[in-house]
């Protein structure tokens, strides 16, 4: 099936300081690259999960796709139409076909509007008058599993899970073909997370929507996405079918991330692979491989030469000189060559 959304070599930059300050401090490049050379596709009925820690640029990608930030270079094609560089006015029709759900379930709903106004607002915004608003409100509430009593409530009278359902109803109002969900389970209790994930999965099955799910929660990605991409400092370090990546991560960062997921079992004291220290600031992006400052397998080479995008097998790519879990069975990172460092802090 042809792709619904195609992103190629997307780059997003932000100004890190004013022009005067850049002149005064003689900074030749007063920009930070929030997203670097990112390429991916989302097909109808499929889900791509974007995983990464804070500052990895995953939310920036979402906002750029929705036209809320300008892209610096690269292309964004929706259904074959180029979107980057469009004016806000020209973007409007695409905001019918692409809907976004924001992180904060309650905070992303306008506080003075009732649930009914909130879920029927998309019709007003896009000038759709031929539909019966009452019937639509009823249909949408039913679709996300809320009773009609909720129509007259205000956002602050909703629990996190209920507010999230309202957010889903709003996103679905205009029958979009792509949904971008930024941390759909953030701020929700474990018992409610499942509800939201099940709801999204059911709607996707019924309506054949393409989804881009952005999250730091690996447990969520595992159950909701067909394909996943791992981001670090604005770059995709690994991308592939979800099960593939979970079972045989190639990039050391993916491995670190996977093992940093504490098991809800007191006897599962697994051998943890840890990254040293802290995520570097985007203003001081490390040379060559971005992860070398924290990588348990890093060698001098990693700080000198940019790693290439390597294909492991069909659809599974990574960006690392010394990948782990290679099919030959040996772990290249453990070879003692004097540059390998111990990886525990202290």
């Amino acid at each position, binding site marked *: 099936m042809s792709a619904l959304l195609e992103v190629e070599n997307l780059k997003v930059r932000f100004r890190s300081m004013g022009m005067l300050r850049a002149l005064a401090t003689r900074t030749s490049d007063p920009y930070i690259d929030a997203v670097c050379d990112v390429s991916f596709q989302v097909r109808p009925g499929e889900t791509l999960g974007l995983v990464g*820690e*804070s500052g990895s640029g995953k939310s920036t990608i979402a906002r750029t796709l929705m036209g809320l930030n300008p892209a610096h270079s690269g292309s964004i094609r929706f259904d074959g139409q180029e979107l980057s560089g469009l004016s806000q006015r020209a973007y409007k029709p695409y905001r019918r076909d692409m809907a976004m759900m924001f992180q904060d379930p309650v905070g992303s709903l306008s506080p003075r509007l009732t649930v009914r106004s909130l879920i029927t607002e998309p019709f007003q915004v896009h000038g759709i008058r031929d539909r019966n608003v009452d019937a639509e409100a009823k249909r949408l509430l039913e679709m996300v*599993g*809320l*009773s009609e009593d909720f129509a007259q409530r205000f956002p602050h009278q909703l*629990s*996190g899970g*209920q507010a999230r359902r309202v957010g889903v109803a709003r996103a679905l109002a205009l029958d979009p073909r792509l949904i971008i969900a930024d941390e759909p389970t953030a701020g929700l*209790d*474990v*018992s*409610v*997370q*499942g*509800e939201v*994930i*099940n*709801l999204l*999965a*059911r709607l996707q*099955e019924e309506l054949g929507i393409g989804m881009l799910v952005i999250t*730091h929660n*690996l*447990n*969520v990605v*595992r*159950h*909701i996405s067909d394909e996943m991409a791992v981001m670090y400092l604005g770059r995709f370090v690994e991308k592939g079918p*979800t*099960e593939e990546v979970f079972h045989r991560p190639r990039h050391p960062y993916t491995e*670190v*991330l996977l093992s*940093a*997921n*504490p*098991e*809800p*079992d*007191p*006897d*599962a*004291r697994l051998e*943890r692979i*840890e*990254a040293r*220290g*802290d*995520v570097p600031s985007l203003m001081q992006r490390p040379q060559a491989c971005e992860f070398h400052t924290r990588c348990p397998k890093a060698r001098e080479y990693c700080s000198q030469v940019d790693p290439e995008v390597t294909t492991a097998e069909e659809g599974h790519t990574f960006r690392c000189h010394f990948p782990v879990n290679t099919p030959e069975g040996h772990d290249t990172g453990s070879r003692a060559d004097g540059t390998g460092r111990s990886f525990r*802090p*202290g």
Partner: protein
Amino acid sequence: MTQASRAMTPNQDADTLLEVRNLSLDFGSPKGRIHALRDISLTVPKGRIVGVVGESGSGKSTLAYAIIRLLAENALITQGEIFLDGQDLLRLTPRQMRDIRGQRMSMIFQDPMTSLNRVLTVGDHMIDIQYRDSAPKEEKRRRAIEALGRVGIPDPESRIRNYPHQFSGGMRQRICIAMAMLVEPALLLADEPTTALDATMEVQIIDLLQRLQNELGCSILFVSHHLGTVAELCDDVVVMYAGEVVERGSVRDIFHKPGHPYTQALLQCDPGRIREKTRRLPTIPGNVPNLLNRVPKGCIFKTRCPYVFDRCHEEHPPQYDVATGRIDTEAAHTARCHLRDPAEESRDIEEGHLMKGGNEEESRS
């Protein structure tokens, strides 16, 4: 420590550091009283890490704030006692309580900026917190640098001059831990210390707490909603739901042999436990009960419990010993569920059947 308060707890166990007894707490609101904590009892033995788990609205953070007595103005403790070393904290004057906070217990918060002043350097904070000590400033500074090094801040000699905003979230939490540890507390209260952090930082902080606890031998009350971190860090676990302790026991009891349907459901819901890829995750249908002006009759979990039967609607379950089925508040593993009563044995439903297959439709609320 006064003689009077000692005399009140003659049967105080020598190994017990903190004991909360029958604590109840209300919040005043324009619409009435919210009964946020009801009849909470728990003990923190010396040198152990006790986890308090629960979802939002369970009252787990309120409990921590009540112990260190940093409650909001509208909170009112209606009954109960909180003993630290046999001394009832609720009877202390604010001044005595301040001394306890500076010497015997300290607290770390979800947002490290809560406890850091943005106009003071890290060094100022860390020297200031030793105000009780008469050592010269240079000595205090040396100790501060040592503490920062111990919590894994690289290059502490120069970073001690930096301001809090010059550190990342994970580093700030390390600084808070270093500050809390400088007073060498007997009890450290940790209120969701890793919730605001990324996964890789989270495991670093967990490791750090574990290491420091080993070195200093203090006790930790660790409040969290994250089952994985609790399983990894804690020795004992207290499960809270809607202002009540529904189950408590050792970490293995709670995670391997949960005695309360809520604990069972909570464990089943955690997507981290589900290995095979699925698009239907289990949930707990329904909502937390409203605690405004009234407490529902009977069991607090009855509206969401898959095993609910007549008795649950009428009788508030006491703390049953999960091993023997006797009513025993002192037992090692207790649960507030009538199913633990031997009289209800015939009802025992095979475990794990509940909420399989994700009845997302039924959660319509």
